């Protein structure tokens, strides 16, 4: 199968000059195939977010290579980053990052508008995606007028609208209650299956992770373990995750 994302010996070190080096990401190699829903788990400080930031071009790597859709992002020039992100990546953040001066509809369509797409086409696509995510009714509202779960689904729609090669989600359920979390994860799982969207999600919540097909566990900036869901039920997979977390020595407190 085609690798959408490929990492080769990626390292990210902080604080070079003072002699106190923090190895946030320490030689990680991994891949994500097209249409996969992969989770990265690990305790606080294990390097999850740094890794995601490197993949999403928010941060630069110290060494190693990252390719997205066969393009080496460590070699992209500064001025081309914007185009690259727009064409290849979709983002979902823990705290939504919606623009509060724009309505939900405008938030979703923003990147298409900047891409100068045909307005009629934009409208069609926004409504189609809003239907899928069940946010059609709130399209004309402003972010502060809707619930957290709705905001995150709006962020999902915004990430999907470009049909990006890869969707990067950083603790998407972090700010949501359990009902909204479940709804969102079901939606994500749905878009993964029905729309063949490739999703890489960083989380420390085993419940969220149990919706994925494959989970990578990080510890001290290295890959510690990798498990596949395969034919297991979600509940069994969830228990397996818990076992690994126990082994990792933490995060069991988060069991729901």
């Amino acid at each position, binding site marked *: 199968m085609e690798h959408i994302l490929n990492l080769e010996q990626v390292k990210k070190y902080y604080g070079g000059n003072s002699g106190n080096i923090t190895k946030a990401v320490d030689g990680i190699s991994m891949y994500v195939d097209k249409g996969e829903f992969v989770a990265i788990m690990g305790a606080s400080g294990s390097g999850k977010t740094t890794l995601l*930031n490197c993949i*999403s*071009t*928010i*941060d*630069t790597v110290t060494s190693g290579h990252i390719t997205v859709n066969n393009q080496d992002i460590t070699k992209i020039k500064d*001025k081309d*980053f*914007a*185009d690259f*992100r*727009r*064409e290849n*990546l979709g*983002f979902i953040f823990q705290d939504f*990052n919606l*623009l*509060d*001066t*724009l309505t939900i509809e*405008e938030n979703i369509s*923003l*990147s298409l*508008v*900047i*891409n100068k797409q045909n307005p009629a086409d934009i409208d069609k696509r926004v409504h189609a995606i809003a239907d899928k995510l069940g946010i059609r009714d709130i399209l004309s509202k402003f972010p*502060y007028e809707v619930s957290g779960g709705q905001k995150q689904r709006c962020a999902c729609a*915004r990430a999907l609208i*470009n049909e990006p090669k890869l969707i990067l989600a950083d603790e998407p359920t972090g700010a949501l209650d359990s009902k909204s979390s479940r709804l969102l994860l079901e939606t994500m799982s749905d878009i993964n299956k029905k729309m063949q969207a490739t999703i890489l999600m960083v989380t420390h919540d085993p419940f969220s992770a149990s919706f994925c097909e494959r989970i990578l566990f990080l510890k001290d900036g290295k890959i510690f373990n990798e498990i596949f869901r395969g034919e297991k039920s979600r509940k069994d997979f969830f228990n397996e995750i818990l076992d690994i977390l126990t082994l990792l020595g933490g995060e069991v407190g988060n069991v729901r």
Partner: protein
Amino acid sequence: MLGKLAVRNTKRSIKDYLIYLITITISFSLILAFNLIASSDKVVELSTGMGSFKTVLTFINAVIVFVVCFLINYTTRFMFEKRSKELGTYMLLGIKKKKVAHLLVTENILLGFLAFVLSIPLGFLFSQFVSLVIVKMLGIPEVIFISLNLISIELLAIYFMAIYVLVLLNLLRRIRKMTVHDFLYFDKQNEKKMFRSSKRRNIIFVISLLLGIASLVFWHTRFNFENYSTSENISYLTICICVLIISIYGISATCADMFLSVLLKSKKLKYKSDNLFVARTFASKARTMGFTFGTLSMLILLSLLCLNFSSINKGVYQSTIERSSPYDISIYEVKKPFSDFSEYLDYIDDEYTISNSLEYDIYKEPNHQIQNFFQVEFYDFDAILKLSDYNKMLELRGLDTAQLKENEYLIITDKQYLHKVENNNEIKVLQLSNGEKLNLKEIDTQTYWYAMCNSGRFTVVVPDVYTQDLEIAERHLIVDTKEDTTADYEQQFLKDMEDKFIEVNENGEDVLQSYRINMRGTTVEEQNSMTAMIASICLYIAFVLISAVGTILAVQSLSDSTKYKYRYSTLRRIGVNDKSLFRTIKKQLLILFGVPTVYSIICGFFMVVSMNNIFQILLQSKYSYLAYFIGSLLIFFFIYGIYWIATYIGFKRNINEES
């Protein structure tokens, strides 16, 4: 879409930055108003002194533009930092950095342009008001309408553009250096503490304090008549000011932290009512705002000095007129043969009703025992006045006459030269050229006036008998008229009596010695325009400076009220009722607004006390400056207070708003 975004963001910003918007609008309006006035021919023609108004104003405007630039730059940077995450999101969505910068620039220009447009009608209105004040001060009954002219608006536009080009270039430079990561995680950055070790902080505090005291003491020593007029004084004063500036920054950066550590050491103070919360909230602000606090203190000090200067200027008004022209008209001649003064009297009589007139002579005493302490390099004699003439002059001014025994004499001089002869044993006995000896009775500084005698800066009054053998140096005529004289009349007088005032100099050129005539009307007019000019300009500067300080503090506080809303909802949750919550906020804002003023007020006070050494001779009393200082403080706190109240209202609204 980007345009729409910019407009919506601007709209939202207007709500957040209303105070800022009002301040820059008013600042721009004032700049325009003063430009309009300076360019109005009618105002410039009002009096002879108004001509320099334009020149002074150009310089003042440069200072004001600088302050407004600082304010706009500060707020722009602040808004940018507050919105960095939003900007990062744009970039993640694939909007190019260039476009993000473009968006930001558009927003800022929209906001600025709004202020610019609003300031035109407002400035026009202000100019009428200022013109009314000036006309009133000049004592002119008519009202001058200031018309709107394109050049002044263009000038404002140039200032506006200069400010925005500078501010936006600075902003773009910042953006260029930042990556998406910097944008997204800007608000997560730990605030930098200025001083890591408390020992270092304490040392800096003590050094700054000592520097401050040293500069103020040195400043004080420069403000006496012996040092004041020396040529190197200006360099010494500049050094003082530089040292004081360093001290202000040092103290501002450290004192809040110092104060806090003292407060936290005392359990009694720490746990008293809301002290802990207020102190901690303030400290978190003060630690990162040290440099800004320094700048704010500087601006406050400058505004206080301006306000004081304006009051002092008004205070010296009457005494300056009295010292320059105690009589309606005075004329003197030095060249012999002296002309017949009845010609002057006849001429004056045509225009005015003469109520009194007096001719007197100044004699030369070649021993120049007293001139030795004044300007012996210019005049090789002492200027002598007859006691009888002196007494007549006193009578004309309604003052008590002087009495001298046969062997006594008086020195009349200006207060600022008193140090030259005061307690001087060498003049206790005056040896006249004919061998007579006179004892010094007293030195009088109250009755001196500039045109009393032209040869030096003092006059010796002796009993009439001693002047018999002396040569006459100057012949004076003083005239009091029933009507008030005018500056125009002086011009007319000089024109009609030209032959009496024109002298041929060494190069054979004709020189009009207009200084030999002094008309009270001219002095009054000059003083009026000086007072009007200085008072209006000082108030203008002070207003802009105080507003800049108020705005920066308001913008800071209001943004904190949204950013740290949870602090107040936490307080509410743990059972603090609204009344005491608002009291806490009030206290907190009071401290934030109050702290930068403390050191400035102390420095300002000592500077004014020192300056009073010079100014007191012109002021009604030795202590008038205290009233001026209190008056300045009242004006200062009135304007500052408006900002404080506006901030408090905004703060309350923000924390009450549903999220």
